[in-house]
């Protein structure tokens, strides 16, 4: 701006045919102003600003004050000369205008001052104190008629101009004019000599100018820069940030934000932190439960005490291994487990792990109910569904019924056996209520093996997948838990052994044993052995067969209900059964060492390591499953624990491939039942008739043959 304006002014100048040299200006200024006033005023502006930088010594602070003038003059040059073409304003009008001006001036004193201060050189020399002088005063001090007229004219513009800027411009123009005029009377060299004399007051004025400018309040926000800067500095000095200069923009922003925030008091959003409070309130119950329950607990305490696992201890070991949740979260879970064991008749409880979800996570607890206290509610639903299928068959007439039958549903295992050996409770966050997961069915496991879905964190979410999953997310979660448990629950060799009585006799499935008990004689395994040899770890959860069960269910043995339904269609059924009557699926038995686990495409299924190489004597053995990423086990020789944290998906180096669509059912083969013969020809019929006549030759039977003929038509 400052660079461009002088240039502009020069151009303007040249248009007027002036050369822009100071001595020529004086000539123009000394002209009679009346006829070419508009011209003169314009040209003089340009002239004035032209020499000014030259005349002002560079070192004097006044040069700073002169720059705003340059700025302001710039736009002034382009202002239309039309208003100045009414030079002979009548005195009454001028008076009236002056009255009008009065309030305007009082408002605008600051800007007036700045203008009054700029024509420094001459005025200051003449009258020593000019700082506060209004245009009236300056004009009067000049005592020039020409200036009087100028003044009135200048005031005439005042009320017309709506915006401050333009009015200021006029004001300025007037001052410039004045200065120019005085310049014409005095030597140009004078200002320089005079400037040094009055430097202090000029400095003062310059400061006041600057301050006045800073104090100007914004038309938008009503703030002014002066207050803003002082607030900023106060803030900086209060807070003493390091490298304040780097963050001054943000300090400024903060100060401004504070101004705005005051207005918001009526619309404040009080509920913003509400969920946090809610959770805290819920979790408070966890911490309080110990106190709230009275003395009537003693009985239960005995049982509850050993049903609650020592979560913190195993968390400590898992921390050594570099897995697990944070300390405080673990403790909350610990408390939540205590709440669970207090409210349910639980024999044994274990912190199974955490399964991540999209919206919420699941904290999973594995429990075993005390004898005879399991709930039996859920059973009804499934049977009701099966009945529905049976009812549909009744109302069909002679038309052949659809003999495609649903693939035989493998019944789920009884609670406390197989995959349903344990009951699982989940909650989204410690403090929220525990939800019991339904028992798992083989069909769910079979389907779950074929799909790969993220859990959402809401148990009632439907699972939409290609092989339709029988159930919602709670069933899927349960199936995944069953699969992960079966794959990754391991213990050091010898910790468990088969019980003497329970195991063998009760099992009808050829001596396979599915129960075990803690070995009282277990004397521990060296940690280093556990790390070096995978054969020192054994599975203590039953393998889940491809069928979806842990114990073999022979699909050929039918329940009575099914047999009744199948009795009619036995012929077809037998053909169908043929491929199904496979020999029993067998998996690795219980307590099989994990060294016999299958490899995943050259990837070993387990990784073992010592928790610390620095202090091996106190380190623990850490086992990590590569098949179920996120499954860990540790053992310090005597103790062990399993833990799962992850998304609940099985690892595979290959990408997931959706199962192929089921085979298309072949149409009925074209055989004698389908094809028909050609219509009997006349020759055939005649031959037939002749044969009949020949054979029987009696009148009664003729009638019958006629009937036959009708049929053939």
């Amino acid at each position, binding site marked *: 701006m400052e660079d461009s304006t002088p240039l502009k002014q020069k151009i303007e100048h040249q248009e007027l045919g002036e050369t822009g040299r100071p001595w020529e200006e004086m000539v123009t200024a000394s002209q009679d102003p009346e006829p070419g006033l508009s011209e003169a005023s314009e040209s003089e502006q340009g002239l004035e600003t032209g020499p000014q930088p030259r005349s002002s010594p560079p070192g004097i602070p006044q040069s700073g004050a002169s720059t705003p003038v340059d700025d302001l003059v710039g736009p002034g040059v382009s202002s239309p000369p039309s208003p100045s073409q009414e030079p002979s304003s009548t005195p009454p009008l001028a008076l009236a205008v002056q009255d009008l001006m009065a309030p305007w001036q009082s408002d605008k004193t600051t800007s007036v001052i700045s203008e009054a201060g700029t024509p420094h050189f001459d005025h200051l020399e003449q009258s020593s104190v000019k700082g506060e002088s209004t245009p009236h005063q300056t004009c009067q001090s000049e005592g020039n008629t020409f200036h009087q007229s100028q003044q009135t004219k200048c005031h005439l513009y005042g009320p017309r101009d709506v915006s401050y800027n333009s009015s200021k411009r006029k004001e300025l123009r007037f001052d410039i004019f004045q200065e120019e005029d005085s310049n014409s009377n005095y030597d140009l060299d004078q200002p320089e000599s005079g400037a040094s004399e009055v430097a202090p007051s000029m400095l003062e004025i310059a400061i006041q100018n600057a301050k006045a400018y800073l104090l100007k309040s914004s038309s938008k926000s009503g703030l002014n820069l002066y207050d803003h800067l002082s607030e900023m500095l106060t803030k900086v000095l209060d807070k003493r940030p390091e490298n304040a200069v*780097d963050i001054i923009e943000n300090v400024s922003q903060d100060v401004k934000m504070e101004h705005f925030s005051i207005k918001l008091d009526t619309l404040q959003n009080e509920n913003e932190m509400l969920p946090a409070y809610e959770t805290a309130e819920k979790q408070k119950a966890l911490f309080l439960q110990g106190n709230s329950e009275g003395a009537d607990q003693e009985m239960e305490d005995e049982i509850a005490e050993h049903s609650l696992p020592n979560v913190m201890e195993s968390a400590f070991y898992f921390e050594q291994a570099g897995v697990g949740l944070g300390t405080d979260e673990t403790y909350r879970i610990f408390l939540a487990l205590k709440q669970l064991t207090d409210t349910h008749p639980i024999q044994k409880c274990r912190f199974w792990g955490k399964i991540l979800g999209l919206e919420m996570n699941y904290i999973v607890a594995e429990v075993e109910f005390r004898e005879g206290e399991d709930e039996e509610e859920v059973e009804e639903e499934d049977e009701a569904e099966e009945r529905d299928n049976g009812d549909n068959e009744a109302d069909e007439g002679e038309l052949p019924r659809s003999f495609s039958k649903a693939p035989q549903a493998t019944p789920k295992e009884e609670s406390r056996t197989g995959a349903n050996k344990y009951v699982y409770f989940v909650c989204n966050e410690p403090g929220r209520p525990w939800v019991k997961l339904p028992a798992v069915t083989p069909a769910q496991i079979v389907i779950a093996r074929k799909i790969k879905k993220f859990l959402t964190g809401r148990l009632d979410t439907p699972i939409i997948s290609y092989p339709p999953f029988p159930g919602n997310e709670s069933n899927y979660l349960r199936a995944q838990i069953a699969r992960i448990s079966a794959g990754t629950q391991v213990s050091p060799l010898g910790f468990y052994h088969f019980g003497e009585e329970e195991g063998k006799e009760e099992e009808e499935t050829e001596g396979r044993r599915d129960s075990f008990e803690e070995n009282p004689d277990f004397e521990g395994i060296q940690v280093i052995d556990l790390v070096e040899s995978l054969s020192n770890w054994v599975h203590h959860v039953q393998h889940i067969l491809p069928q979806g069960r842990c114990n073999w269910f022979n699909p050929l043995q039918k329940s009575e209900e099914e047999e009744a339904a199948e009795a009619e269609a036995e012929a077809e059924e037998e053909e169908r059964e043929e491929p199904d009557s496979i020999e029993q699926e067998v998996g690795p038995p219980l307590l099989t060492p994990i060294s016999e686990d299958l490899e995943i495409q050259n990837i070993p299924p387990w990784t073992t390591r010592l928790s*610390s190489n620095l202090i091996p004597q106190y380190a623990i053995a850490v086992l990590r499953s590569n098949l179920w990423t996120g499954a860990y086990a540790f053992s310090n020789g005597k103790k062990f624990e399993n833990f799962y944290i992850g998304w609940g*998906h099985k690892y595979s180096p290959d990408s997931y491939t959706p199962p192929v669509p089921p085979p298309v059912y072949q149409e009925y083969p074209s055989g004698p039942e389908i094809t028909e013969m050609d219509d009997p020809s006349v020759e055939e019929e005649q031959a037939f008739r002749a044969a009949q006549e020949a054979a029987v030759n009696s009148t009664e039977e003729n009638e019958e043959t006629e009937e036959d003929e009708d049929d053939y038509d």
Partner: protein
Amino acid sequence: MDEESLLLSLELASGSGQGLSPDRRASLLTSLMLVKRDYRFDRVLFWGRILGLVADYYIAQGLSEDQLAPRKTLYSLNCMEWSLLPPATEEMEMQTSVVKGRFMGDPSHAYEHTELQRVNEGEKVFEEEVVVQVKEEIRLVSIIDQIDKAVAVIPRGALFKTPFGPIRVNRTFEGLSSSEAKKLSSYFHFREPVELKNKTLLEKADLDPSLDFMDSLEHDIPKGSWSIQMERGNTLVVLRSLLWPGLTFYHAPRTKNYGYIYVGTGEKNIDLPFML
């Protein structure tokens, strides 16, 4: 996560089970400081851990003054001795794209991969089986680079662009507000913008050039490649990448605590569309 606030960060990120054992923590605190001194980094980030079959790679990154300038990546097997990895190139990505499966944990391990290559002999074209060997170190570099480009996250406002171009840490960043923290649009990819140039003027209109100079997460493909959760009763927001499972970003709203850590196998989840 920043080296200075490592312990707090680990505590915050622990919701996904991605912890460090006490001895690793202690050694990281010691060695990262030395790394910072020796390599003259402005900032050192503990980037994460890539789980190998035999051993794990611990990864750290050094940042220069300009936060978006190419970062230096170091790895260590024992958290004490760090070695510098070469910068990743496109060629490396091409080479390693054929390798599948888990990392071994041995940087000099060579993956063998047979490839059919066309060999011109005179006029005849033979197809020849060529065994390509890819060093695990190269694969490591490439995977880290891919993860960084795809899922490194930073909250909006944590960095700002200076008028001269370099990107600096915004020291007046006071955390996202609780409502902003729940939106994906408040988080940016911690890398040079790619998508930003392709936006229309209309979309760019509301952007603040000093803050919105990176790509926002909300337009990631496929939609739903992030899981965003409030934990600890809304005092902690956790973003988990579903495309690169194992990457966890945490941020405590209204505080300066934010960061990300990757603990995983270093494999991309290309099954994502099936799983949503």
